[in-house]
């Protein structure tokens, strides 16, 4: 892992045309290669707008974006380079899927990159295998289930070999089984050193999964840090209306009532919590 940020955003401002409300009021963020970042915040805090700016679909009023050290200019070649490197999995799969077969859908990105047919086919097969969709290859995506559609939209981006993948509320509208499969897929992507940016309202997920938590509130970033750092900051939680993850509350309550020592362990998933309980019982 190098020390140079793969994505550096400097003082990004954006106003939707026809409105005077500034949706982004100066966002600065450094994203390191291979980082797992969760972005949290209210509806309307500017998360989706931020994503569309970072991907080059929306053009910021002011501010700069550097992708792999290169400043992104407002021209097609530069924007296409950014869009190739930064992929977005949209919140509503129905608004992303455009082709009438799964294979056609996943091929859309690679074809736009100007790759030859053999390479496109290779990447499509690869992405479908990765998302366990090989048997769906010739199906019509509009008639797949919600979870399958989500996986199709992820395969869309995997096939483009994007280094940074953005997920806009991926767990919304998924049942628990599909949410679990999604989490496994995300972990798999993280293991391949993809940089992942995920917006979510699921604090338990953010707490156990993210390396870094970024809190959006009213078009600004009000906190960045590890989940424990951010969530122990009461002022931030209050301003962004964050609900603390269940495990964190249980841990804090146990410490408060003197059942456990205040060792700042903050176990982040059930297995770690179990392990931690064993260790305090032993001591």
């Amino acid at each position: 892992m190098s020390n140079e940020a793969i994505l550096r955003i400097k003082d990004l401002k954006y106003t939707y045309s026809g409105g005077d409300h500034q949706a982004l009021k100066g966002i600065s963020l450094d994203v390191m290669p291979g980082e797992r970042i969760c972005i949290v915040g209210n509806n309307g805090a500017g998360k989706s707008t931020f994503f569309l700016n970072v991907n080059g679909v929306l053009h910021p009023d002011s501010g700069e974006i550097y992708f792999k050290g290169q400043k992104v200019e407002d021209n097609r070649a530069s924007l296409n380079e950014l869009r190739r490197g930064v992929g977005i999995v949209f919140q509503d799969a129905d608004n992303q899927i455009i082709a009438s077969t799964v294979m056609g859908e996943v091929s859309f990105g690679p074809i736009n990159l100007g790759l030859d047919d053999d390479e496109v086919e290779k990447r499509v097969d690869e992405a479908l295998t990765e998302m366990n969709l090989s048997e769906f290859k010739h199906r019509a995506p509009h008639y797949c289930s919600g979870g399958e559609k989500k996986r199709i939209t992820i395969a869309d981006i995997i096939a483009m070999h994007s280094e940074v993948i953005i997920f806009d509320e991926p767990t919304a509208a998924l049942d628990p089984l599909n949410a679990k499969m999604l989490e496994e897929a995300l972990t798999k992507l993280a293991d391949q050193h993809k940089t992942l940016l995920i917006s979510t309202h699921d604090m338990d997920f953010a707490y156990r999964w993210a390396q870094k938590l970024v809190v959006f509130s009213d078009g600004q970033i009000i906190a960045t840090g590890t989940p424990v750092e951010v969530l122990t900051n009461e002022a931030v939680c209050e301003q962004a209306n964050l609900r603390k993850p269940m495990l964190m509350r249980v841990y804090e309550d146990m410490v408060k009532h003197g059942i456990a020592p205040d060792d700042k362990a903050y176990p982040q998933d059930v297995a770690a919590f179990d392990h931690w309980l064993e260790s305090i019982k032993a001591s």
Partner: protein
Amino acid sequence: MHYQYHVIYLLWLLPPLAVLIAGGIRKAWIHRHEEHHHHGFGHKHGEGTLSIDMYAYHSKIGSWNPKLKIGYGLLLLLICLISNDPYVSFGIIFYTFFVTVCLGELDADHYIGLLGIPLAFMIAGSIFILFNFSHTPFSNALVNIPTHWGYVIITPQTAKATVNLWCKAFGAISAMYMMSLSTMSNEIFGVLRDAHCPKLIIELMNMMYRFIFILMDTQHRMKNSAESRLGYTTFKRAIYSFGSTASNLFLVSMKRGTQFYDAMEARCYNGDLRFFEEKKPVTKQQLFWVIVPTAYFVLVWVMTFQGVNINV
């Protein structure tokens, strides 16, 4: 006019009819154990609206080479129009029925229902060809209908012209249905692209095609939601709900269209909508179903040729 020839000419229709019946019996035999049920697509209320694409998606001849299918559809259309021969037209109607329903395994009820859609246009269009109006009755007319203002007359010529027109139109529609009910839209666009159709036109077709579905889908969603809130219980309320839905429709569809466009742009869309398509090779079986009937229709055309008819 030698009517006995026409009776003999009718025999030319037997082979296509026999193929159709044999295909129907075979299909019924294969599916004899399956309970007959209507599939979830079609024009039912409260359901998805991708029906035409859905027929093509479920078609058993969807795996045929799209160029072959589209070329063949156009060829039959041309034969039908140029020959201007009701025997050829009827042969094509029977044969395309066979291809779509027996080979493609589309539900016969659905197919007949779809064929009924252009019927209204054809009735409206042929009224003025079939009927003549005059103050005095015609001696050679088939029918003279006296009315208060004069006579409504059907002559053998107009009757023949109408029959010819109907046969031609139905033959042509059948040929186009055979193509569109078995070929997905993206394959049609792909073939047009290979045929060097201007990129702009294909792009526009594709965009419009997508947007129609977005509109229909949006309308469905809003209608369902209005219906679930008792918006259609009385006529007055239904009018009101329909009006509100319609006024919202454009706004909501625009928004969804923009989201689609954003998602496309995010994947480096640069004005060329292309998808990877499965390679579907032409097989001997496909060629058989194309070449043999075409040869037969040309034969029928030659054998029943009655001189150039310039009336219609």
